[in-house]
């Protein structure tokens, strides 16, 4: 093993280069100045200067989710580190591999309440997969390489390395990307006997459904490929969580749409009535299950997951399979094929007949009438005008996010970046910057609500500085739409604090940053305005004024099972959420 003497700051840069990092999102400060000095003196790594550390972490997340490679953020001590906490928690909830490097006050000042000191490893311990405080320069490069290994192995997640300033200045021995085996080696192969049991259950199933999630996408392209092969070979219907959109193409024959609280009627009904549920890389989140004791009462359940703690956490399953989606799907396909590729075709045809009946409900139907743009219409037009493009979609959090999931179709994985688990307003804009940096020539759109977007709008500066043509498609209802919807459903239409009375002029705001602003309020102008947005070579803020009181349907009210969905136009929404459901979020 080669070893070289260098400063800790240089080690950081060298380790990033050795790990194949090409882009770092960051913001300098006193405790990371030596590292910034090293960044200044090299050309291998591009540093993207964000406007707020939260933006750096979300941008790293966007980069990671759209490429499958880990994202990297570099911030200073104290406030730099605390500003990174939301992004770390977001990445932990959605299993996104990112490496956050924080500066720290010198080791001899730790614990003295020094300027810009914070107990960063203490603060971030519950919101990282793992973190390290490096106290000796000699150990720094080893920790850097281990951090990449931990972030990307098993269930991916965020890691943080806290590096005191004296460790950055001091010299030590650099070790190359380690050949040494880390003790952290999650199990990837599933139990073959249990996989065989699942194959047998698939042969006998009358009403099967694949319930897929972000784990398929995290597992990588092979998992997606194998999943598509398995679906085609078995002709089973497939649904997905918000996180898993794109693992199976939206245009595919067996796709029955997203499931969950704002999922499609047919997907939720299929989940409720199925007799075999095959969960691949999803985690029975409360947005999916609704009322637990009424969740899919007639089914045998299989659960493929790389994280043992996800299995039997919420829903008891009959066939737990611990392993990586790609490895398990490969074995499952082989076992099922070698046993004769059997399915109960007769009952499967009846099942599809039932699903097609549910599809006739047409749960996403809406009427675009009059002079006000319906948000659903805006997204339907965005879909029509952009789906042929090499397109990546980010979202903020709220109604617009659910409408985007419902009305936009995803053909491939890694094309859809949304804050699922944590529900972080302000995620989408910086994430779109991360995506655009990784895909310079692609069309990157952030579907936003005006309230979410304002939470990290300072990143306009970043978009303009690096000429990133990110399209900020804001569905502006001058409301916190999802909060307003819940207040209508649960709080007697008392709209406490859920509207903004002092919104900026978004066109002027874009102009002030040196970007292009487009205002659209007339349905007749919408297509031309969207085309103008697409064709502009630079960042665009698209202010789409939409219907202010539109609710997002279908909806499973909290505390209700899947077969008690509220459907759009004719929904009786008064007192839709009652009893214990009112305490849920």
């Amino acid at each position, binding site marked *: 093993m080669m070893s070289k003497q260098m400063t800790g700051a240089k080690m950081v840069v060298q380790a990033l280069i050795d790990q194949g990092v090409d882009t770092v999102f960051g913001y300098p400060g006193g405790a990371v100045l030596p590292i910034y000095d090293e960044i200044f003196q090299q050309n291998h790594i591009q540093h993207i200067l964000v406007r707020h550390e939260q933006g750096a972490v979300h941008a790293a997340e966007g980069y990671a989710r759209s490429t499958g490679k880990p994202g990297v953020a570099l911030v200073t001590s104290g406030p730099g580190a605390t500003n990174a906490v939301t992004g770390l928690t977001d990445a932990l909830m959605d299993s996104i591999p990112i490496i956050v490097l924080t500066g720290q006050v010198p080791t001899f000042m730790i614990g003295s309440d020094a300027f810009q000191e914070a107990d960063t490893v203490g603060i971030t311990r519950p919101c990282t997969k793992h973190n390290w405080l490096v106290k000796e320069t000699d150990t720094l490069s080893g920790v850097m390489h281990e951090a990449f290994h931990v972030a990307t192995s098993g269930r991916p997640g965020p890691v943080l390395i806290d590096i005191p300033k004296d460790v950055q200045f001091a010299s030590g021995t650099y070790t190359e990307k380690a050949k040494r085996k880390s*003790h952290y080696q999650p199990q990837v192969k599933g139990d073959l006997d*249990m996989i065989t049991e699942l194959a047998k259950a698939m042969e006998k199933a009358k009403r099967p459904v694949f319930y897929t999630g972000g784990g398929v996408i995290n597992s990588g392209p092979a998992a997606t490929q194998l999943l598509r092969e398995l679906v085609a070979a078995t002709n089973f219907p497939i649904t997905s969580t918000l996180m898993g959109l794109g693992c199976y193409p939206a245009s595919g024959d067996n796709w029955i749409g997203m499931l969950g609280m704002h999922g499609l009627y047919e997907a939720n009904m299929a989940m409720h009535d199925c007799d075999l549920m095959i969960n691949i890389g999803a985690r029975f989140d409360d947005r999916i299950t609704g009322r637990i004791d009424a969740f899919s009462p007639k089914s045998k359940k299989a659960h493929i997951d790389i994280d043992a703690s996800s299995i039997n956490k919420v829903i008891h399953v009959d066939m737990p399979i611990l392993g990586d989606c790609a490895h398990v799907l490969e074995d499952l396909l082989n076992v099922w094929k070698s046993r004769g590729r059997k399915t109960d075709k007769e009952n499967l045809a009846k099942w599809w007949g039932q699903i097609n009946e549910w599809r006739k409900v047409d749960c996403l139907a809406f009427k675009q009438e009059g002079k006000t743009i319906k948000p659903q219409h805006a997204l339907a037009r965005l879909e029509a005008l952009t789906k042929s493009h090499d397109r990546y979609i980010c979202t903020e959090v709220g109604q617009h996010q659910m409408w985007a999931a419902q009305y936009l179709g995803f053909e491939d994985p890694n094309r859809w970046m949304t804050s699922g688990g944590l529900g972080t307003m302000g995620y989408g804009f910086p994430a779109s910057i991360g995506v655009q940096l990784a895909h310079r020539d692609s069309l990157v759109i952030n579907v936003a609500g005006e309230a979410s977007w304002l939470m990290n709008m300072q990143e306009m500066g970043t978009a303009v500085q690096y000429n990133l043509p990110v399209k900020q498609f804001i569905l502006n209802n001058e409301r916190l739409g999802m909060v307003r919807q819940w207040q209508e459903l649960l709080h007697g239409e008392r709209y406490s604090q859920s509207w903004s009375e002092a919104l900026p002029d978004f066109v002027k705001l874009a102009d002030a940053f040196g970007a292009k602003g487009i205002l659209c309020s007339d349905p007749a102008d919408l297509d031309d305005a969207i085309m103008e947005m697409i064709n502009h070579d630079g960042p665009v803020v698209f202010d789409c004024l939409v219907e202010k009181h539109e609710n997002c349907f279908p909806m499973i009210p909290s505390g209700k099972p899947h077969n008690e969905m509220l459907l759009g136009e004719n929904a009786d929404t008064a007192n839709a959420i009652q009893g214990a459901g009112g305490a849920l979020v």
Partner: protein
Amino acid sequence: MSPLKIKKGSTSHSAYDLRSTFGDEVERHTLAVIVENEPGVLARVIGLFSGRGYNIESLTVAEIDHTGHLSRITIVTSGTPQVITQIKAQLGRIVPVHEVHDLTVEGASVERELALFKVAGKGDHRIEAIRLADIFRANVVDSTLESFIFEITGTPEKIDAFADLMRPLGLQEVARTGVAALSRGAS
């Protein structure tokens, strides 16, 4: 004693099937967690219990292998079978955790706790205290004319019983180490 792993080559013996995972009975389990002896590892384990709302009845920790940088954390916890399964799985995914053993289900085990009792008194109380200490095989490790410190080793139940007896005899202070436990037989 084998680490918590899904057993290969068995259908009905995965770790999840050791017991009905969704029973309602609250059970007491003793877990032995072998961890990398690095800064913050105890905070990770304790943070897991407080963050997810699990119980800790007792917790002991000490280095057991200096060259291998390994420590052993013995945790006595309680919960429904589902919660116990979750605790073990959550412990298992902490990066510096090497092994998680549930001594309560992995065959017979031995549990011991050490405690120090300060008992002050005169006359009959003093005589009775030392007589009972003898019955419990407690050692006197400090003595003045008005007090004793007894050292006692045993199961937590034995130490509880001794405490109950000492209380009316002038018990002033107790220090307990928490449980240390090992599975019986060759590993």
